[in-house]
């Protein structure tokens, strides 16, 4: 597809009051004015699907815990994400399952390219002022990474 026909939506996820989980919210603010439709979701999952309007590209920005060092920036195509949710609580739906559901139910609005930009976090049990230093330092790099993806 020619570059001029590409349209990108960026969905930033995270609780702005919780230490490293706030990284998605911080990046959301720093991306203001970028060449993409920018949305913020306090909680991801199925809430993301109604936001899609047929863009060709989706970039999801969220804090992750994949076992790397805090502040590590992961750029992962959605089909390589771990799956297999079987939650006892309604909080249990992840990005991979959400995209699978979207592809099954709403193929007309689903993006062709979906990428997770995950910032490795460590602290999820304290308030915003306790964001890990390495995560705070990674925000600028993550923003540049996302701008290059657009």
């Amino acid at each position: 597809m020619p570059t001029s026909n590409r349209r990108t939506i960026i969905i930033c996820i995270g609780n702005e009051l919780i230490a490293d989980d706030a990284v998605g919210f911080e990046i959301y603010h720093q991306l203001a004015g970028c060449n993409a439709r920018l949305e913020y979701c306090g909680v991801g999952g199925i809430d993301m699907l109604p936001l899609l309007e047929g863009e060709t590209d989706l970039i999801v920005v969220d804090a992750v815990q994949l076992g790397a060092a805090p502040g590590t920036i992961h750029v992962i195509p959605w089909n390589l994400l771990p799956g297999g949710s079987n939650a006892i609580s309604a909080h249990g739906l992840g990005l991979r399952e959400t995209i699978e559901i979207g592809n099954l139910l709403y193929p007309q609005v689903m993006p062709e390219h979906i990428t997770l930009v995950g910032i490795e976090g460590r602290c999820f049990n304290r308030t915003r002022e306790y964001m890990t230093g390495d995560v705070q330092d990674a925000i600028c790099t993550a923003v540049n990474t996302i701008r290059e993806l657009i």
Partner: protein
Amino acid sequence: MKKTIRIDPVTRIEGHAKVFINLNDDGTLENAGLVVNELRGFEKILIGMEADRMPHITARICGVCPTAHHIAASNALDNAAGVKAPPAAMLLRELMYMGHIIHSHSLSIFVLQGPDLVMGLDADPAVRNVVGIVQANPELARIALRLRTIGQKINEMVGGRGTHPVTSVAGGITFVLDQEKKKIIQEWIDEARAMLPAVVPAVKGLLLNALDKHPAMLHDWVAPSWGLGTVLDDRVSLIEGKLRAIDETGATRIEFGVEDYDKYLVESVVEWSYMKKVHFNMNGMHEYRVGPMARMNAMRRFGTEMADTEYAEFVKLGGSPCHLTVFQTYAKLVETIWAIERADEIINNAAVWGETRVPVTFKGGRGVGHVEAPRGTLIHDYEIDDRGIIRAANLIVATQQNYAIINRSIEQAAQSHVIGKTDDATLLNAVEFSIRCYDPCLSCATHAVGRMPLEIAITRGGETVKTIRR
């Protein structure tokens, strides 16, 4: 030889849950329960904050029931300040709340319990998930997710934000209704109403099918207990009214204002969990249930046509009071019907156009407020000083109150599907399904500010003999 089976399906849930099932040497059940190992923290965080921030801050406790905390905090602040939010403000808070109920119950029925109902408890866990339900019944899934979205849109329009609403404040609400917004909300409500003829029989059919396949659920998964729900003129009511406690027979034992909750609801610590459990203290300590089924057991009518018609069907199948654990799903369905009808009533009530705020000053003192959260009674209790600063906070949430009954249901599931069975998948499915009937919100229950995995362990005489991971 003693037996332990550990099951560690590490999933993306909020709240670190562990289920233990202890068997005696002879293989009979000794006991079972849900352990929650996350630090209780939110009540401490609130101390020192400005009271008027409570509706915004406490909404962040949970991404699934933020509107419940948002409105409960607002009600508590109204009471602390000695004001009554104007009728229009109460109606608009309730309209936001109906959106929340539609959203939350749709999520719970279709996303959480749907896979169990559509795929069956015996299905491979690899397909017994929400993606599986979409593949198996895409049309129902499409309708269900649209219903959920409509609820969220109503919540978002009135609440200012969908996930963490911001408009309800001490003394009223900042949302202002206009004709354009009314028109949009009315269209959403009409669309939701139009879905009911397809959704209601489909969900009932799935539930009855599951009971056919697992008749033990109908006969053995019965948990008679006291119940607690909010009523207003004998009707179910979610954001205002008196708390009514009923006993196992359905007889009303007492009605009280939420400010007296600590006369009757007694929290206690258990050594194996950070989640405090709550008993009802009246002529002895009683286990009790909160949530959709408890509310239906406590009220006499919904007061809307379709909901009351479906409630009559519910009673025919499940009795009154109903103590069938798996009928929690049916109760959520009836409440969803009612929430759509009630939203319609509110948006067409002339009183909704009135004044929406009154001035608020905190002179120092205590404020207790509550709502009926999707999962059950939620109480916020604040001590506020004369500068409007929070000096103490106590939150009683639904999952705490259901804790004793959840543990009893786990024991019943273990009895019917675990003891003497060798099929690990069925074992795990049954135990998890029994918990899912209560849709526990473990972040709320511990007021945690984190995310944690699940672990299930079965022991026999104290020794682990088996570990199952998913």
